[in-house]
């Protein structure tokens, strides 16, 4: 057993942290310390897990010593481990950022316990090897996110939350239906076991139908076209720290689930499912970026860009070649950090100027050149300017698209990259470059922003580092893609020699 426990740590640590901070609900300082130090510990444990997985192959933990197809297993393959590390980075950055930005009122309503619970749910979803357990973790993170979304209770928050809750419940219902049908068909919930047994099912049409149900359920959670509108309706309403972690993580859990299910389980009829995925990817990219062009509020622009970026990730899965999957995984790694960071920058802009509206902003470059540079790094990376992380991510994907002769997808991906650049330049011009608008806004001039700058700076440094040290990152993505495209490795690791 030895180091197997590493697989459980990313789940049990945030659960314990959340529970402990709930017991000290009225002690704000203790909660903040638990938040910052605890998420740092969590990050360390997740990195240890990543190295363990990288060096020693897929890690499997049979919870409670119940053997594989019967009990719940936690599985850490490269994709899962990478996602967990990314989640923990975002969690740590958010916890640091929250120290200075989250008001006492929200802390009293349980901001920190919810944050930890959210992280536990996200990590659980990335690590579980059981399809029903995946559903449970989805619910855990959704419950936490519902509560985080409406902390504060403003009108816009409620309005956004209703759309968010309704569509996500619909998606959960579809997910559950699909799980029920799967169980009826093969009588098992272990994902590796399902993958083995689906092959011998007579009614392959039914398998495709179930696959499509999973596809719709996860596509809603990933905010893919056409059911994406819950995202721009809600993501700009909560506090910035919450927006950042939502933007970085939540939709990516949906993307992760798509990657997991459509590489491991439903690979029999890829001609059908992956063709649908390809068109979803193309339309998601386009609608997202066009939606962003019409917005003039920073957080709304960024929200729409999440959607268009989701399109790129799904594109990687849809092309389903080794290079495309590598590109998709690389894109996820790059995107989570960049997107969370952009929201954090937006929060700092609000702190300095008291507005998210581009019309009311201006002159930031003159007053805060440091912030301007810290904005430019993730913004240009998002648009795919070399040598930042986004360039390599887009480059790999587009190269894969060219190799697969998916010309429509390649064309749209290039166009969307250009439009993303346009969007980022729009924010740059309006918020940073143009003069301070008349009448000059009364600035509350909050001090002690050093910690916020540091948080943003560290994430920006990571973006640059992913660009400069693209090779080791690429190798990790390659390992993840190799495991995804050879599901037998995963199945072998989970079920061992006892497979029928």
């Amino acid at each position: 057993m030895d180091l197997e426990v590493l697989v459980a740590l990313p789940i049990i640590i945030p659960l314990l942290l959340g529970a402990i901070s709930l017991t000290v609900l009225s002690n704000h300082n203790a909660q903040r310390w638990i938040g910052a130090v605890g998420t740092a510990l969590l990050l360390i444990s997740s990195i240890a897990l990543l190295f363990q997985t990288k060096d020693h192959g897929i890690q499997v933990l049979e919870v409670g010593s119940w053997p594989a197809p019967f009990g719940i297993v936690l599985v850490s393959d490269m994709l899962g481990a990478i996602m967990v590390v990314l989640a923990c980075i975002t969690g740590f950055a958010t916890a640091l950022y929250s120290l200075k930005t989250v008001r006492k009122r929200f802390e009293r309503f349980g901001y920190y316990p919810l944050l930890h619970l959210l992280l536990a749910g996200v990590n659980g979803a990335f690590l579980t090897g059981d399809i029903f357990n995946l559903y449970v973790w989805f619910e855990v993170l959704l419950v936490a996110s519902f509560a985080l979304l409406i902390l504060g209770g403003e009108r816009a928050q409620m309005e956004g939350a209703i759309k968010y809750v309704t569509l996500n419940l619909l998606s959960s219902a579809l997910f559950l239906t699909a799980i029920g049908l799967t169980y009826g068909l093969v009588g098992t919930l272990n994902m590796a076991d399902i993958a083995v047994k689906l092959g011998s099912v007579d009614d392959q049409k039914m398998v495709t139908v179930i696959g499509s149900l999973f596809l719709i359920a996860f596509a809603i959670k990933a905010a893919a076209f056409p059911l994406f509108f819950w995202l721009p309706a809600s993501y700009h309403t909560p506090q910035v720290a919450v927006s950042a972690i939502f933007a970085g993580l939540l939709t990516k859990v949906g993307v992760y689930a798509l990657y997991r299910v459509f590489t491991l389980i439903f690979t029999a009829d890829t001609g059908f499912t992956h063709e649908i995925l390809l068109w979803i990817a193309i339309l998601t990219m386009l609608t997202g970026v066009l939606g962003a062009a019409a917005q003039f509020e920073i957080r709304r622009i960024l929200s729409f860009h999440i959607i268009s970026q989701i399109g790129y990730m799904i594109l990687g899965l849809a092309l389903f070649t080794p290079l495309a999957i590598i590109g998709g995984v690389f894109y996820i790694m790059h995107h989570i950090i960049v997107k969370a960071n952009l929201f954090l920058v937006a929060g700092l802009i609000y702190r300095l100027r008291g507005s998210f509206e581009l019309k009311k902003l201006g002159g930031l470059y003159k007053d805060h050149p440091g912030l301007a540079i810290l904005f430019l790094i993730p913004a240009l990376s998002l648009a795919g300017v070399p040598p930042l992380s986004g360039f390599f991510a887009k480059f790999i994907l587009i190269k894969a698209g060219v190799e697969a002769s998916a010309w429509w997808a390649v064309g749209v991906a290039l166009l969307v990259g250009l439009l993303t650049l346009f969007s980022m330049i729009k924010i740059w011009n309006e918020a940073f470059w143009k003069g301070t608008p008349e009448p000059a806004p009364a600035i509350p001039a909050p001090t002690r922003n050093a910690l916020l700058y540091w948080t943003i700076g560290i994430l920006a440094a990571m973006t640059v580092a992913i660009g400069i040290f693209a090779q080791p990152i690429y190798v990790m993505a390659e390992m993840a893609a190799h495991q995804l495209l050879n599901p037998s490795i995963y199945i072998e690791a989970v079920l061992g020699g006892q497979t029928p």
Partner: protein
Amino acid sequence: MKPRRFNMRSLILNTGSTLLLPLLVLFSLFLLLRGHDEPGGGFIGGLVAAAAVALKLFAEDYKAARDMLRVHPLQLVGVGLVLAALASLPALLVGQSFFTAQWWLVDLPIFGELKLSTPLLFDIGVFLGVIGTVLTVVFTLAEAEHS
């Protein structure tokens, strides 16, 4: 303005509740401990215990119920979750897989054999968690009525 009282106050309920309360609490503990091998367990026991506090709330008032609980119900949830999460760890000390149930048999002089285990710890966690959750809801509603 004087805070509005619950209009459910009655002598019968009041007297009855003083008799019922200890019984309910005892019964909830009975259910909790019985839940190992027979119907019962932390969840149902927690509901009964929460009902006991709710009875206090109806029979007397919000303040009395809060005083009886002494802590904020959310803190109970926290303690419960900590216990439940801790129940997963002892297995690691003896080198078994995470969350494997551990049993310790203790011989007591008069009562005989006592079975302690991590599932019991987990169940106590659930018990506290359920009490805390239900009472958070009840108290929030009562608070809205109170003010």
